[in-house]
């Protein structure tokens, strides 16, 4: 296994998993992954990491009391009931 390129490819992996990488580099990584089990694991675990923080991210919501105080501060009390 040739690991010389692993570190070099690392910089591109983020774009690679987003599928925003140029075709040439993308092909280079594809070719490398076929023969480099370690890098394949890095790619898989990077994808899994992204999946995990997306599914565990908190909801974008405001607690009721915080919302009430916000609307009051903005003098929007009349709109509180929606």
């Amino acid at each position, binding site marked *: 296994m040739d*690991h010389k390129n692993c570190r*070099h490819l690392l910089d591109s*992996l983020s774009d690679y998993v987003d599928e925003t990488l140029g075709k040439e580099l993308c092909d280079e990584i594809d070719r490398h992954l076929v023969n480099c089990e370690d*890098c394949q*694991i890095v790619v898989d*675990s990077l994808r*899994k990491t992204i999946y995990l923080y997306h599914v565990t991210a908190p909801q974008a919501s405001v607690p009721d009391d915080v919302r009430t105080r916000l609307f009051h501060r*903005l003098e929007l009390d009349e709109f509180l009931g929606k």
Partner: protein
Amino acid sequence: MSDGNKKTEKFSLEALRGGDRTEFARLVEAYSGNIYRLAMNMLSNSQDAEDILQETFIKAYRHLSGFDGRSSLSTWLYRIATNEALMLLRRRKDIEVSIDEPHETMEQIFEPMQIVDFCCLPESELMSAEARDYLDQAIAQLPLNLRVVFLLREIEGLSTKETGQVLNLSETAVKTRLSRARLRLREQLSGYYGERYGPQIKEHGRLPVGEHK
């Protein structure tokens, strides 16, 4: 991905610029959740996050008449909120808080690379309460310059371009920082899962550290 843009389309800029209270209330309703979440994630303190939330919309209301529409409304609100949060961090720490690129240390350049194939773990273990806490901590401990980019791109769902607009960064800088943030989190999770479930998963040791470009 950027649901912010879809929301923006529903607002009448003309009404907002003219100080229409109903339209402004709709704007607050639409974005307060996102702004509050960003502030919580940046400051890890609910009182501070509430202050930022209020300040953001107070400033927005004051300056809406001058909003030029070059960016989307959501990007503009995120920009106000991010700047407010960074200012608060500066005051809180009483030190220079910068999102500029710090000088890289050798440690950063030659970061270890753990090869732990944790993908195959069952969901119950991947997403245990403890694992979620660990991930939250890992995000909270990202260096500020990486964390802000990470939160805007990955948690708030802004595009690379929008994130650049919020932070005055080039798209290349946004991509680089997001990449570093992701790789760091991957590294941390590899360590975490490797330690706990090592025997269950194939552990390969470390990637040989080669020349960094």
